[in-house]
């Protein structure tokens, strides 16, 4: 559990008792590529800590195009949080793009633990703040950067991105088409 432990330590260290209580609601799972962690149209119950592998959250928009909201890498928190928060059917599907090792956490059980133990409550808040910051930045990028600049920013964050996931997924993450993406990549050569 080492990158998970350091994730907790970095965000908010827990007392021995709280850590034990938290561990009791966690399940380590090995998922093969294409495993669905959370499915569009279903009310999710869990979220995940991605120990290794790559996953993504995507939907099919009104125009019939795939839109990849998020590409997750190891150390990321993965989940259909809007649906978890509202206890409603998810709008996004979350799937493993490679074999993944995840730590599964029951969202409701974590909320219950957070209502009992203040250190778990603080950790829970910090996780929410992390998700929040990512969402804010993504919105600002959409508003202020064109597709080329968004692609360059993605490359800067994950230099190896072109080898890790398909061009189709990168394009759908940038809200563009593969044809336009390949044009952008050519123009940057």
């Amino acid at each position: 559990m080492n990158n998970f432990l350091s994730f907790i330590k970095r965000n908010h260290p827990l007392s021995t008792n709280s850590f034990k209580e938290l561990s009791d609601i966690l399940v380590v799972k090995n998922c093969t590529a294409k495993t669905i962690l959370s499915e569009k149209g279903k009310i999710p119950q869990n979220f995940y800590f991605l120990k290794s592998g790559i996953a993504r959250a995507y939907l099919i928009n009104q125009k019939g195009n795939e839109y990849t909201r998020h590409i997750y890498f190891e150390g990321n928190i993965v989940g259909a949080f809007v649906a978890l928060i509202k206890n409603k059917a998810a709008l996004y599907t979350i799937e493993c793009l490679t074999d993944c090792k995840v730590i599964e956490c029951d969202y409701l059980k974590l909320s219950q633990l957070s209502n009992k133990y203040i250190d778990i409550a603080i950790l829970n808040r910090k996780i929410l703040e992390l998700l929040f910051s990512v969402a804010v930045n993504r919105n600002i990028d959409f508003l202020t950067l064109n597709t080329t600049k968004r692609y360059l920013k993605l490359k800067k964050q994950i230099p190896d991105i072109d080898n890790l996931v398909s061009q189709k997924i990168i394009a759908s993450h940038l809200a563009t088409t593969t044809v336009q993406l390949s044009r952008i990549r050519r123009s940057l050569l």
Partner: protein
Amino acid sequence: MKDLINHINNTYQLSETSWKELIKLFKVKTYPSDYKLLEIGEKSKYFFFSLKGIVRSYKLCKDGKEFNSNIFTEKNYLGIFSSLISKKPSELGLECLTECELVRINYDHFVSLSDKHIDLNILHRKNLRAFYVSLIMRERELANLTSTDRYLALKERIPSIDNLISQKHIASHLGITPVQLSRLKKDLYSSNS
């Protein structure tokens, strides 16, 4: 202040002790239109609850173009939470678009309180969750909707938006120019009639 108290009661029932501590952090202030609650590059210290008036958060690009990342309406919390959380200088500014009556709350003081009292922590978590939901909705609009559909979504959220703030600010919320906005509205209303 009644609106904020109602908002909190609707979110989570607090103990009397927590209420007493929390209310000490509230400061009601009136700000004129165009007042900058936070300058770009400044560290954010406060968040607010709007009792009256509309506020925008905006970003200034290198080429001088302005974008409104959010338009905050009455009876809602507002602030540059990214800077509050990271404690880094804010990429965004916060400006009153109308005269505003706001409740000002020091974020660090609020967080220290909520780390002591579990009911305040739950309240905080619920507020953050609600805010997160609105961010993801906005992302879906920005990534998947045309500017016309984004305009319609804004109208649905704030029906009187065209009378409340300038066309310039609406356009910059949609990520388009005022000229494009006026063309869009003309097309929209002529095709409806």
